[in-house]
């Protein structure tokens, strides 16, 4: 009887141990795990991996791209079960991983030389003081755009606006003609961040997050113009801006129900899926009346990095170098409607030309919310503000929530 008990316990433990092994597969290949936070790019990654495996027959790369990937990655951190390679966004999570000294430092590698310095700077700002360095390679970038329906634009006789006043005038014209100027999808809190980032990115002081943490800046002092302009934009929306979500919005906009749509480049494939014949254009939201000052909000959507501690540093390096080659970078941005962080690799698609121009001219600035502490859950606070429309109370709350999260 005693032996039965032992057997049960023993087999339980064996089961637990077994799941921990298996790095070297039976056929002598080295297994690497690539963790990606973008389910949209699974197809592209799989074809790139296939090519890589043909060139390196002794390496087997396994792609893992679950939904809610950031959350999954955090839970895996808790279990200390980490992948070899990461493909993640340049957001607060990257900063936390770098700060926790989990990632490899690429500061002194040649790979970094080919990447647009503006993007390197963006991810450097995410890493707090003590561990300064570049712990990843910006790969593909995204942009916050105003997407417009070319047909509706022509019918209304409008040109692409270059200043805030022109922009408002265009919205005004659409409204007078009975066309919905902007299709808001604010039931999904995150979609409110697109106009928010466009407006705030152009209007907030440089290095706002750093100053805010040091007590040199605050939402109450520096964000009143932002909230003002957000409320102005809201007047040009639907009867109820909080009725529809992102998917509803894609369907409606692709079927020509509005003039403008505040979304990122990532929405374009979705829109084309709904209506392959739609003619779209993009531009950066002109937030000020000074043409030269208006910058495009662009961020590091995908960066490739690896764990500091891996059993196969050589194989990992080979894969990273392979991905950074022009051919692969070009394929990635073409299939994903993205932009490349690698100098000289340009997005040729006509829909994105208005935005690509800004990137080529280096007229870009980063997403402000990537520097807000993630525990604050800014999208929900902003959604609440857009419903309540109380500027003072909201700015005050943003300040308090920020401080509260930092203090924890």
């Amino acid at each position, binding site marked *: *009887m005693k032996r*039965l*008990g032992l057997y*049960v*316990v023993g087999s*339980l433990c064996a089961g637990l141990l077994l799941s921990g092994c298996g790095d070297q597969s039976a056929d002598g290949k080295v297994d690497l795990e690539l963790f990606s936070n973008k389910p949209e790019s699974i197809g592209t990654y799989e074809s790139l991996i296939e090519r890589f495996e043909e060139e390196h027959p002794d390496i087997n790369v396994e792609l893992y791209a679950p939904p809610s990937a*950031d*959350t999954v990655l*955090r*839970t895996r*951190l*808790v279990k*200390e079960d980490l992948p070899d390679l990461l493909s993640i966004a340049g957001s*607060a*999570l990257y900063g*936390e991983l770098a*700060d*926790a*000294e*989990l990632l490899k430092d690429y500061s002194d590698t040649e790979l970094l030389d080919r990447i647009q310095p503006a993007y390197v700077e963006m991810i450097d700002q995410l890493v707090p003081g003590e561990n300064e360095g570049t712990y990843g390679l910006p790969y593909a970038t995204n942009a916050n755009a105003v997407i417009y329906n070319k047909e509706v634009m022509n019918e209304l006789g409008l040109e692409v606006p270059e200043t805030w006043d022109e922009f408002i005038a265009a919205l005004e014209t659409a409204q007078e003609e009975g066309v919905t100027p902007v299709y808001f999808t*604010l*039931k999904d*809190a995150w979609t409110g961040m697109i106009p928010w980032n466009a407006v705030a990115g152009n209007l907030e002081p440089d290095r706002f997050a750093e100053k805010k943490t040091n007590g040199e800046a605050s939402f109450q002092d520096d964000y009143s113009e932002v909230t003002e302009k957000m409320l102005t934009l809201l007047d040009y929306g639907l*009867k*109820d801006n*909080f*009725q*529809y*979500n992102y998917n*509803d919005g894609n369907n409606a906009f692709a079927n020509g129900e509005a003039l403008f749509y505040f979304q990122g480049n990532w929405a374009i494939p979705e829109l084309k899926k709904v209506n392959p014949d739609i003619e779209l254009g993009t531009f950066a939201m002109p937030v000020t009346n000074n043409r030269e000052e208006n910058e495009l909000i662009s961020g590091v959507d995908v960066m490739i990095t690896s764990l500091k501690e891996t059993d196969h540093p050589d194989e990992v390096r080979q894969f990273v170098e392979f991905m950074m080659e022009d051919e692969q970078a070009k394929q990635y941005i073409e299939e994903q409607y993205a932009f490349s962080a690698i100098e000289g690799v340009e997005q040729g698609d006509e829909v994105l030309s208005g935005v690509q121009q800004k990137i080529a001219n280096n007229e870009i600035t980063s997403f402000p919310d990537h520097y807000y502490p*993630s*525990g*604050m*859950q800014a999208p*929900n*606070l902003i*959604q*609440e503000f857009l*419903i*309540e429309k109380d500027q003072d109370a909201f700015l005050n709350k943003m300040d308090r*929530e920020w401080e*509260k*999260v930092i*203090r*924890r």
Partner: protein
Amino acid sequence: MKSRQRAFLLMAMPAVIIFFVFHTYPVLQGVFYSFTNWRGYGEWDFVGFKNYLNVFQDGRALNAYWFTFKFAIVSTILVNIFSLAIAMGLNAKIKFRKTLRALYFLPNILSILIVGFIFNFIFTHFLPDLMEWAGFESLAKNILGDPDLAWLGVVIMTVWQATAFNTILYLAGLQTIPEDVYEAADIDGANAWKKFLKITFPLIAPFFTINMVLAMKNFLMAFDQIVALTNGGPGQATESISLLIYKGGFEGGEFAYQSANAVIYFIIIVIISVFQIRVLQKREVEM
């Protein structure tokens, strides 16, 4: 006799071990980390009761507690009213009784996420369109997009989905009542309402207790229906405590802080459940 006892002990042991490894141990770990500043990975230090004090000052947490209790109490009452009524109907001698029982049990089999997506469609497109068609312009909007009304949307879906399970429990209870009690009441000239109040309800009192406790506990831990319907929005209007713990802990990197919140919440649920059982069981005896 002794060897029989050992056999029973051995039968119970695997479950105990598995329960301890996969449940009790993580709970203890969570309690331990609630006294640290752990982010879920990396370095950490002990911070004493700081996390606990911060929870009590956190407007967002207090808001989540308020929403959760409001939601749980209203849903528990509604679910019990509806499921008792349906169970009485399904227990009576009516046509298609078996078919109807199966039909009313359906919502319980459907995945709550699927139900959520269907209701999302109803609230976003179907109801507003219907209202507009009927001429009620002011009502033609998505209640899930309104911070004052969104919680009602969650209640409606939850009640629709949860009634099925409690109906089954009440049905089981109703079938334990012997027919001759009612016959005796008929002879005494009791009307239907009297029969319900004096016979049916007291005799299924234990089922009422268990239904109240189970429903309340389930709704206090509401998570998936909210993820499917509103994901806590608009703003933070429908953020339940479980959702807050999940979002803050895993998406916001506040593992230790939300562990403290979870410990507090665990204690509250235990207190409520014990209180409910005490009060309701005392009432059972009195009746």
